[in-house]
């Protein structure tokens, strides 16, 4: 039944139609970013195209609307990369301790991680902002990076994965004289490539598209991330939809490319997380 070729062609047509509906908003975004300004948001496929929206962005806008679009892109890169890197390192370290080391207090730390992970984080927003302000980090990269330097979810995922690695690998390395750091770097992490990809992609995506936190801890124009700048321009400057679509493309395309580069490992890694 399912195997009949007619049914199969039908299934592919449905699958393709569904996929088209799902990626349509992206297509709409790209088309409108290249549309002539009088064509933006007028029809599904604009009738004339131009690069004016991108020129507008790269020259920083016109008529006193100059905003640091290019700089904000690099701010996003700096903040997302640094934050994600720290979350990966701290996640792997803590998880290694929880999964593969024996020490007093381990169960306590493990329970604390789980408790904090399921604790509604909204309660922490205002006081965390005040901490950042009080230590003089307001309006800096550190304000965006340090409070997001550890991900409980990353600790949780790594811990589960590390636990599945047989202890014999670790014991034999230990007998060969390897210390814990060497075991983590040379044995455990190389065995965890696919889960590392999954964790990296989810963390980076989330960091890249963060709005609320990056919006409240930064004030200066030149410190804004691209996502926050786009959000700011969205409201009051509705008269420039073309450039906003172009900025959306610039915000979205890098993350899609990054995802597609790791798509194969991502799929393998997801298989573990879904078991």
């Amino acid at each position: 039944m399912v195997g009949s070729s007619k049914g199969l062609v039908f299934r592919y047509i449905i699958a393709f139609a569904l996929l088209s509906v799902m990626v349509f908003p992206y297509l709409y975004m790209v088309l409108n970013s290249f549309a002539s300004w009088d064509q933006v948001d007028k029809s599904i496929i604009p009738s004339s195209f131009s690069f004016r929206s991108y020129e507008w962005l790269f020259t920083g806008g016109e008529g006193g609307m100059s905003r640091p679009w290019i700089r904000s892109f690099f701010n996003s890169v700096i903040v997302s990369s640094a934050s994600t890197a720290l979350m990966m390192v701290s996640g792997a370290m803590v998880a290694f301790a929880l999964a593969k080391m024996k020490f007093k207090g381990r169960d306590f730390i493990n329970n604390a991680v789980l408790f904090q992970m399921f604790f509604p984080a909204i309660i922490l927003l205002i006081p965390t902002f005040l901490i950042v302000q009080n230590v003089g980090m307001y309006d800096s990269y550190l304000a965006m990076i340090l409070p997001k330097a550890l991900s409980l979810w990353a600790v949780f995922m790594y811990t589960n994965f590390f636990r599945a690695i047989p202890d014999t690998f670790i014991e034999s390395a230990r007998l060969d004289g390897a210390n814990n750091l060497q075991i983590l770097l040379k044995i455990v992490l190389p065995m965890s490539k696919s889960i590392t990809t999954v964790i990296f992609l989810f963390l980076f995506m989330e960091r890249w598209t963060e709005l609320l936190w990056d919006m409240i801890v930064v004030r200066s124009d030149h410190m804004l991330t691209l996502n926050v700048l786009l959000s700011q321009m969205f409201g009051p400057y509705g008269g420039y939809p073309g450039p906003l679509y172009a900025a959306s493309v610039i915000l979205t395309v890098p993350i899609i490319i990054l995802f597609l580069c790791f798509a194969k490992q991502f799929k393998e890694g997801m298989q573990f997380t879904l078991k």
Partner: protein
Amino acid sequence: MMKKRFNGTGWLFASPYLFYGVIFFIIPLIWSFYLALTDWNLIAPVYEFIAFDNFIEAVQNPGVQAAFFVTFKFMGAFVPMVIVSSLIVALVVHGLPRFKGLFLIGFFLPYLASGVVSSLIVKGLLSYNSSINVVLRESFGLDIDWLNSPLSALLVVAAIIAWKFTGYYALILTAGFEGINKEIYEAAAIDGVSAAQRFFRITLPLLYPALFTTLILSIGVSFGIFTEVYQLTGGGPNYATNTWQMEIFNQAFTNLNAGYASAVAIIASIVTFVAIIMIRKILEAWGKRNGWV
């Protein structure tokens, strides 16, 4: 001997969490309870202790009351939307002999969109002169002000977030489908089971663990809506899309009522925590009663 040596290094490896847990969890947690008992406005050097006045004011505030109900209304719209759409995607994709992975990756792409970007696109698609609205007006005589009527604004925001999560949940459900033993279907076919019976009596129970995961995840998402609402409606019209996040953000960073906003945040956390645990229990009981778990 061995155990002793591991001891210190264990704490050393766990130290990032210890620092983080103290600085970004314990201290803010205590601080938020302290703040909630004051009338501090984020700027003034002096403030007073007002005991539970903030909490009393909060529960009587229309914005807070709206946030409580909007979360559940939002859940009522978003959860069915995203479950049905991801179920459809998983149903269509899981039986494909080729390119299944490629399709799943394609469906996952919306997850990568920033809420700001998806809001921008939807605002464009629903603007007065957009082709959708022109067609609706000219062919059907429908003039819908999508983001300015309470029900449609809520549904639009729910749909944007459903769009984002469909591919992710479809991935989970597809893995669930793949875990089902094909022989059961063959046996059912021999017994002459109808397609509807097959879905409700075989597929659904065996899919329940994956479905449970997506349900819990999507319910969790319902409690954390901010970007789309901030971008499209600002919580309006008339609090129809005023989520907890939106209310807390407005009180703390627009009106600068840090003390009061902390009280709202504590209420929001308690409501979220209790609601999620209760819903979980109900789902588990429901699964058990039907013999699915």
